[in-house]
């Protein structure tokens, strides 16, 4: 399971579980993660949880900016297309900072192995 934690001065103030196939982020109340702050667009960004087609049991998380006014940034780089999130990425929605954590990913062995 992955989570999305809002940071204020590097302190976690709120954590959202990314348990749905799609998580909508924006200022309007119909978003899954609502951020009522002026730099955030009504519908700002979308996080998708997609099972990896080549690696059973692995879920990849992708973020897409929904044509927001002030942009979506991953590790301070403004994203244009859909981008895969890696554990510990810092995502900025307008002026609001979040940390993406994927515990499954951290548990994945980093040494080489073979799919049988």
């Amino acid at each position, binding site marked *: 399971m992955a989570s999305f934690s809002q940071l204020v001065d590097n302190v976690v103030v709120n954590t959202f579980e990314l348990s749905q196939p799609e998580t909508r982020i924006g200022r309007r109340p119909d978003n899954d993660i609502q951020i009522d702050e002026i730099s955030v667009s009504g519908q700002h960004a979308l996080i998708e949880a997609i099972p*990896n*087609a*080549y*690696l059973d049991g*692995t879920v*990849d998380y*992708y973020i897409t900016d929904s044509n927001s006014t002030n942009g979506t940034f991953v590790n301070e780089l403004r994203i244009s297309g859909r*981008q*895969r999130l*890696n*554990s510990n990425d810092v995502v900025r929605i307008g002026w609001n900072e979040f940390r993406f954590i994927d515990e499954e*990913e*951290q548990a*994945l062995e*980093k*040494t*080489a*192995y*073979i*799919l*049988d």
Partner: protein
Amino acid sequence: MGYQVAGQSHTGAVRKSNQDVVEWQLSEAADRALLVVADGMGGHQGGEVASRLAVDAVLDAAGEALTCMPPDAPDHEIRKILDRGFALANDRIKARRAEEPGLEKMGTTLVLAWVSGSRAHIAHIGDSRCYRLRKQQAVCLTRDDTVVQNMLEDGSITLADVPHVPFRNVLTRAVGSVEEAAPSHRTEILEPGDALLLCSDGLTDSVPEDRWPGIVHGHDGPASAVQALIEAGLANGAGDNVSVVLLTLE
């Protein structure tokens, strides 16, 4: 066309054991050569056993047969012999996996090139690669059998994502872990001045490809070029075993 060949495998700056194996054979007239690199995996001992079994199998099944082929032998005849090398490697590793506890997860990458005249026949399984160096360009001639390669091709990720993807070392197939080891084939026409380079991922991960031609062309002969490539990898803290076989054409 006269070839010069050299190769070396180094444990790297971090690992305690070397699971890579390099091998090559050069005909007396220096006009035909067989180059092999294998990168074993699957536990403490397994990796070393698998890569060694694979390279020996290739030499047993293909070494002599290739030497006996006429210089104008058609591509499909060459491929048949290379296939035999992969099949024997696969069979031998599978047999050892079945009989020895502790080795049941072993497997290996395997890339080989048979060069005769100006033709290079390349066959591979896994993520050990073959490159052609021409002037200042290094062109990869093989397609990695990895999850990451599949995701790059379907657009899920970009090259910039690759170093961060946690499963970047996961192979979709390897010799010894598949039912039938049918390698991917490619034939390449070489020109005088070209070099053919086979390597394990220890080199690709530690020295950027665009630096290779400069290193290779900056040295007199393949032996010192191979040494320089490995030293460049070690200087960058090579986290994996680093292996290179290099053929140069005069």
